[in-house]
């Protein structure tokens, strides 16, 4: 259908799952049509197994979700032993997301995973659910530094996943680009708050889903005008139109998180919308559609 080039990868589709709603890659085989997604994206893995945050972790909002999962995962080693061989068989590019509480943890994890045969590594520099630190990608200098170090460790295709909680995404995006990342993933969840009325407690977490689409799409639009590397646009995509719009605003490929669980058919529906648009506007090449509505003329 639409073969999209991302580094050396050739994606069958510009739609991919977002990290954290796709498990370790093969759990949803009966549910999601893997032909309609361009790659497999894993839950963020850390050097050691993480237990994650206490219950409850899921807070339903009017038009979205606030989560406080806290990166529960089985650790990168177990992933490579138990899961990687299984997902390799699915014949899709594999994007492994990695993270950690400190730069060192992230880099250790990177060292480990970069020795494996995978197509791309996503550095999660933006999870709002790990306590006691500012997010790396909230600070351009910290973003630059970790990517610079990561670049020394690996020549694999590197994606930096950014936080939307900054004054100027152009600045963090440019810092990541300058330090040598191959692509940007924009964005992780927005920091948000809800209230537990039963226990009268404030709950802090990451907001995703429909409600954040106008926010993240605007930031992708802005980012596109500041960087020249590919952007994976993520945040609140929930319909064929919002999927297409994210691409028109600058995303080379798009990721779906929350809505994939609400509507597992969404990737196919978005592909149809893109096809229709391309035909209507007589678009032949993918480059012509990406950022079409975000360019300076």
């Amino acid at each position, binding site marked *: 259908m639409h073969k999209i080039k991302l580094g050396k990868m050739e994606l069958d589709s510009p739609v991919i799952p977002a990290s*954290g*709603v*796709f*498990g370790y890659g093969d*759990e*949803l*085989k*009966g*549910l999601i049509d893997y032909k309609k997604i361009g790659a497999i994206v894993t*839950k963020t893995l850390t050097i050691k197994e993480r*237990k*994650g945050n*206490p*219950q*409850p*972790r*899921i*807070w*339903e*909002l*009017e*038009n*979205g*979700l606030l*989560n406080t*999962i806290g990166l*529960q995962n089985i650790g990168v080693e177990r992933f490579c032993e138990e899961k990687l061989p299984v997902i390799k068989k699915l014949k899709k590019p594999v994007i492994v997301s990695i993270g950690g509480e400190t730069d060192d943890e992230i880099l250790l994890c990177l060292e480990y995973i970069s020795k494996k045969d995978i197509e791309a590594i996503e550095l999660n520099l933006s999870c709002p659910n790990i306590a006691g630190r500012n997010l790396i990608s909230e600070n351009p200098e910290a973003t630059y530094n970790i990517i610079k170090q990561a670049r020394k460790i690996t020549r694999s295709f590197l994606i930096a996943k950014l936080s939307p909680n900054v004054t100027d995404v152009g600045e963090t995006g440019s810092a990541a680009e300058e330090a040598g990342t191959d692509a940007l993933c924009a964005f992780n969840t927005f920091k948000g708050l809800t209230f537990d009325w*039963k226990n009268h407690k404030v709950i802090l977490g990451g907001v995703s*889903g*429909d409600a954040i689409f106008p926010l993240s799409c605007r930031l992708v639009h802005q980012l596109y005008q500041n960087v020249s590397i590919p952007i994976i646009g993520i945040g609140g995509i929930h319909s064929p139109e919002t999927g297409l719009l994210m691409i028109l605003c600058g995303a080379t490929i798009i990721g779906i998180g*929350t809505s994939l*669980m*609400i*509507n*597992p*058919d969404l990737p196919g529906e978005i592909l149809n919308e893109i096809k229709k648009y391309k035909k209507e506007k007589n678009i032949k090449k993918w480059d012509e559609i990406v950022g079409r509505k975000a360019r300076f003329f």
Partner: protein
Amino acid sequence: MGNEIEHKIVRIKEKKIYKEKFCFLTTENRFLSNPLPGQFIHIRIESVFLRRPFSIAEFSSKTMSIFFQLKGKGTSSLSQKNRGENIDVIGPVGNSFPYERFKENILVVAGGIGIAPMIFLSSELLKTKKKFSFFHGAQNKNSLLNFFLPEGISPVIISTDDGSKGKKGKITDILEDYLKKEKVDVIFASGPYFMLKKTAEISTRFNIPCYVSMENRMFCGTGVCQGCVIETKDGFQKVCTDGPVFDAEQIRWKDIPYA
């Protein structure tokens, strides 16, 4: 487990509302593999953002039913759907009650709307000719829900908190008295948190294996998001796909906030 999670649009074949508080909804069954007793479906309801989980209460080659209590916005809108309308379901999800291992002296305990998966379980127990007793408890006679049970279960022991029908008292008190007198090989329980917790305590005291169907807030309902985990002796386990049925001994009851 064997059966894969599927995504289907199914037509509503029948709807019955009881006492303005409970709804029995039957749809066509389009799953490729047969659900097991204890498994649930995850339903999309337009008026609320997240899908809602409901145990499979009845199942045949042509139909599938759920039985639910009207709690909030989601269940209220679902109960307003009519025959002929479609609903969007994901399923069957989760594990099942391990009934195959037992032959007789099985005790099924259902508190309130917790009876839903136990209707399906009872049908399977009857089909496989296992010997079991069925306990059902509710607050009062108006909230008893045993009228959907398949025929042929014996005995069905009813209790109400206020004694308006059946034995008077909490279902767990009746259970305790029963265990003092009768031989029981296994307990399968479903119902509110406190009832399950108490049932677990009693089963430990009497040294009887006990399996409970747990609930939690859920997002994906497919095992990928880690949202619905509960504390067990093996660490966090997902209610959706590691459960919903757990060995009661495995659960760290005091660490589970009830919602």
